[in-house]
């Protein structure tokens, strides 16, 4: 990372998406998405399955280039200095894609090495991260033997290893037990208090309601709401975020749908 970028980051940088769109062939996945995130913000990124959440997060993580529009970090396009941006960004993907033949420790050492972190610092951080996340006992077991939750913890540890300024989290709680979920909540809050930007995608609306100070709702690739949770509920006169989400995404009546399915199965 360049020194200039690091200096700006310390001062507090914003992450901004301007008219970002992404198509796969002729199929548009994300259309004209714009928002900006300030340091210290935990933003929930919500939407139904296949609405473009993961695609947006991959673009923000620099893994996918947008078809049109641009993503800026501290006023500079992330694609102008992608390696520099990647050094201040941590990403937890939706699927736990890891090298299954490595152990948890070896995987984290690989990530630390690729990020050119000093070996002693990497070892210390791995020790603390694995201990805190309850993986000390499995640290030398191959990842192929890990449960989904354990893999998710390794992904979280890998994303945090270089103390990133921006955290992009795609369903980070998937498979985690209750204690780990609590720990991760506190972790995100404390990181936000330290000025980190947290962009958080999840389907568990109760968690988002408790954790995030702002939500962005995506529907069919477009942003249909961008406001603090309380403001959103007020605007839509909804008793909960779940009800507000149902209104925004034009959700069908789930009870009626379930009844129809049960009836069809019984016939």
């Amino acid at each position, binding site marked *: 990372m360049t020194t200039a970028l690091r200096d700006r980051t310390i001062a507090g940088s914003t992450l901004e998406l301007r008219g970002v769109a992404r198509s*796969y*062939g002729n199929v548009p*996945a994300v259309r004209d998405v714009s928002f900006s995130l300030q340091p210290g913000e935990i933003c929930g990124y919500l939407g139904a399955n296949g609405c473009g959440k*993961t695609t947006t997060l*991959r673009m923000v*993580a*620099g*893994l*996918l280039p947008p078809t049109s529009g641009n993503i800026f970090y501290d006023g500079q396009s992330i694609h102008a200095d*992608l*390696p520099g941006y*990647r*050094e201040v960004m941590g*990403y937890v*993907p*939706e*699927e736990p*894609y*890891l*090298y*299954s*033949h*490595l*152990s948890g*420790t*070896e995987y984290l*050492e*690989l*990530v*630390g*090495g*690729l*990020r*050119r*972190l*000093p*070996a002693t610092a990497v070892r210390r951080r791995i020790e603390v991260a694995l201990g805190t996340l309850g993986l000390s*006992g*499995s640290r*030398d*077991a*191959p990842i192929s*033997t890990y449960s989904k939750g354990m893999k998710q913890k390794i992904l979280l540890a*890998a994303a945090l290893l270089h103390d990133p300024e921006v955290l992009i989290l795609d369903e980070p709680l998937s498979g985690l037990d209750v204690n780990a979920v609590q720990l991760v909540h506190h972790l995100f809050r404390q990181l936000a208090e330290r000025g980190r930007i947290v962009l958080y995608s999840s389907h568990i609306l109760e968690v988002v309601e408790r954790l995030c100070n702002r939500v962005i709702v995506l529907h069919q690739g477009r942003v249909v709401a961008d406001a603090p949770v309380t403001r959103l509920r007020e605007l839509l006169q909804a008793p909960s975020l779940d009800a507000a989400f149902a209104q925004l995404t034009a959700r069908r009546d789930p009870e009626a749908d379930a009844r129809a399915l049960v009836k069809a199965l019984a016939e």
Partner: protein
Amino acid sequence: MTSMLRLIRHFARLFFNPDIAVAGADPRGVWVVIAAVLAFPAVPLFLELAVAAGDPLPWLAFYMLLGMAVSGLMAAAAWDKLLPTRADFLILGALPMRTWAIAVAKLTALALALALVVPGVNAFSVVVLPILTVPDSAGMGVLLRAMGAQAAATAAGSLWVFLVILALQAAMLAAFGEDSLAERGLRLTVIFGLMLVLGLAPILSAPGAFASALRSRNPLLQPLRWFWAVHAILSGAAGVGSVTLAWRGVEALAAAGLAALMLGALATWRAASTAFARRPTHPAAPRLSAWLGRCLRAREERAVFRFGLATLARDRQHAVCLSAWLGLGAGLAAANFAWVILWAESAAQVGIALLAAPLILGFVLLMGLRQGFAIPVDLPANWIFQQSDNASANARLQAAWAMLAFCGVVPVASIAFCLAGWCVGARAGIEAATVTVLLLLLLVEVLLLGFDKVPYTCSHVSGRANFKYAWPLYCAGFAVFSFTSSSWEFRLRTRPGANLIVAVVVAGLVLGLSRRRRRCWQALGHCRYTERLNPVVEPFMTSGTDF
């Protein structure tokens, strides 16, 4: 079709899956390959036999032994996969079927596979050999009897070898479990299997040795005598003691069958009862990679190097591929030795063969390591390389050189030192090791010409590596590298001055190519990643990595 029949068909198919280099594929396909390789020498030998009239008995015995060896290799190649494994119970246990049904289906499929492969491999010898050896004046009855005798003796011998190995495997699986045996066993089997196949080739030139083996009292050769006695009785050529020997064969067959059945049941019970138990934690990662990594400067280089070592050591695809290459190298070296010992006319030929052995092994090993770089491991996990990408790919590529140097050059140079040091003396050992290091480093530089991919992360094989068209070049390169250079080395050993000049020239070439390679890698800049067309289905697209 009942669920049992479906299961049997499923398991039987697995025995003929040839994709041993595909992730998650079953390595049992290697059976057929080994069987085919072993059966192949039959063709030229039959032609030779047809021309040279002599005593046919050693040939008949030799092919019976070949059939037994094929069965043994097939059983050993499949290693722990012959009996129901924990994976079978994990996958099928959730379905509404009993444990015994899974075990019975797998064993039935095994019997089916055996019933197809063993006669298939031996059919040619069983049918053609009697036609060539039975005199024309003898009637059809004599010919059919000879065929039947050869078939029965070969089948009995093959079945006995197979059952003995199955019983041994079952005993080891029951005692130690799958984890401790599976991977190591597979690798060793591939290495020793290829060594045996290639080392056997020169011995095939002297089948007369079997005539004396059939009369030997050596306990190791007794199984051959038992089943040869079966042949003698059925073909009407029984001698004194044939019946006793044949009975011993029948008893041995029954004992091996019983042992395989009982120990197999025990191993199956263990696999079923531990299927859903948590796998034991592996011991701490080998510290060797950490120690070797300290020799490298850049952190990224160290990280990729250690990732590469772990991949070679633990990923099944890479382990099997490298074992196959290693087995090929060791086999070629062994065959070269055997040939020289059988046919060498001067001490110089033996000396050249001695010096050529590490070069043969090194050439094949480096080729295998280089080929392995293009076989990706866990493609979807490559996103971490993209996500931690920085401005220069140089350090990541440098790890490829380190892999070839540490895993190819260093071990082979050590072998050269030990071999020459043990046979001739310490000074010869040092000289041989130095020459080996220089020649192998030269080969490393040649193999890395135009190489621009992070090892084990890319499935794209460059056009230059098109083996289909370039194999004559590889063969010529192999011959020159292994035999011409060892011949020079042997001739120059008495002329230190000339030896030094050659060493300096080779070292200069290595340095020149090394500087060129570094410049090319530095000029590459950072890594580039290509996308797949349908990322919605396969989310991460770093698989088509190129630069």
